């Protein structure tokens, strides 16, 4: 999409094409097989029978970053691991999305104060689209994070000139 991206004014044609492309993207978010810590267990639960992420077309876990659209950073990011996370993110072809799952990935979590080895939030390494709170989050929370991501994709501009930049979205922890 390189040549046309963000070059065209808004009219019926571009909005419809944008709608189609966005629909395709949000309907088939292939996540990367990638788990760091205890949150990964909950992520697996989202893929498994009870919650079934595949209902939204997001169940095709790809082992290689080249074919993935979504990186779910599920767990504590060590400094040692951060390099790898960044490399994997850079290996993904755009458009690519990141969900920071759980307290550790969002902001260091319980390791915030004394965890000398923990990155205080994966957004210091890669740009994050959706933060999901919880320690670890319930599978439902990750599902809502996925839907928030779908909302975000739905509103993004592909051929149109982009509007205001959108901030990251946030799934609050259940009170």
């Amino acid at each position, binding site marked *: *999409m390189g040549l046309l991206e963000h070059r065209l004014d808004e009219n019926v044609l571009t909005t419809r094409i944008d709608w*189609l*492309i966005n*629909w*395709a*993207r949000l*309907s*088939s978010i292939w996540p990367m*097989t990638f788990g760091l810590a205890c949150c990964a267990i909950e992520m697996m639960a989202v893929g*498994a*029978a009870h919650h*079934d992420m*595949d*209902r*939204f*077309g997001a*169940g*095709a876990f*790809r*082992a*290689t970053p*080249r*074919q993935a*659209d979504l990186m779910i950073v599920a767990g504590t990011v060590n400094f040692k691991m951060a390099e790898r996370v960044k490399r994997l993110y850079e290996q993904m*072809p*755009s*458009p690519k999305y990141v969900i920071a799952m759980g307290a550790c990935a969002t902001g260091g979590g319980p390791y915030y104060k004394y965890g000398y080895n923990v990155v205080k939030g994966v957004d210091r390494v890669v740009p994050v689209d959706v933060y999901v709170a919880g320690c670890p989050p319930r599978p439902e929370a990750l599902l809502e994070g996925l839907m928030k991501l779908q909302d975000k994709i739905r509103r993004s501009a*592909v051929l149109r000139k982009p509007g205001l930049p959108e901030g990251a979205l946030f799934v609050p922890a259940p009170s």
Partner: protein
Amino acid sequence: MGLLPAPLLAATLLGAPLLVAGGQQGNFVTDLVAKLSPVEIPWPLLVLIGALLGSGFFLLLVFITPYAMLAIWAERKVGGHIQCRIGPKRVGPFGLLQSIADAIKLLVKEDTIPAGADKLLFVFAPALVLASAIAMFAAVPFAPDVWFTDLNLGVFFIVAISSLTTIGVIMAGWSSANKWSLYGAMRMAASVISYEVPLGISLLVPVLVSGTFSLREAALAQEGWGGAAWYLFRDPFVLPAFLLFYTASLAETKRAPFDLPEAESELVAGFHTEYSGMRFSFFFLEEYAAMFVVSAIGALYFLGGWAFPGLTPLVEHLFGRGWIFNAVAIGVFSAKALFLVFVMMWLRWTLPRIRIDQVMTLGYKYLTPLSLACLLGAAAWELYVVPLFGGGG
């Protein structure tokens, strides 16, 4: 442009058989070109046009892509239900539009070529793989009068063309400049070389029985009121030959439990690790096209082709062998082939992947001798037992 070489290559591959087999009767594509053209085109030119321009695109657009999309949706749905899930359901009714969404997404996704990759081969490999899939598809007859090219060497041609896929896979694995890709490619080469032997030998059993390589003629020979004319029931050696063929074809099409070339727990994604977007979808397309082609061979050569006990003879009796019969034949044949495809999916979601040495052991120590025994047995049966019943080839 990764898309450009595919049709060119497919045209070359397809051109050769069509030039010969088109014969004076022409085929699907040439007929279409002749009908659409305002001026009369001389026949040889027509065949060339049909071969060079039409077939590749036509097959790709009208047959392979929709079929592969449906099969991918079915794969996810079948997998879901086997795992007590639901599978895609939000994208369109029953998630039917899932594959379309996937395809559009892959089309507009960034197309990466790794810095260390061999650019030329990296771009050429998926095209080669896709072209061989198209060429394989071209030799499959769908009904007595619906086919692209009725080769008198049909099944032999398909087996030969499927070896081009291997070359494409090795090319992909080598040019990616990635060890896992190379490992996957070499595993693919090893397993294909070893499984081509039992595949070919077990296919020789129905060839021996029918006396022809042509898939269409073999299917025509199996028509009849009951299912008794099916080669599967002809003698006690065809059923094991069918099972051997099916097992070997699983390895040929890189399906579980033989999907070592893309084992994600060991090799990231095998030979297509570095492929993204459209090029990756070419490999996907090829896999599903190959699944359909081997299932079609199984259906046509072992399971009676488009004959179904009671149904097709009835239709023939009522309406003759017109287009109604052909339509029913397409339906019956597709149902059989798609059932075999479904069994492939069923096996994939049920069986664990086996190790590469187990794959080799199975191929060389068990499948090859067994298929040889089947071939010998079938030959002996035709020679000594069939004359007892007064039959004859």
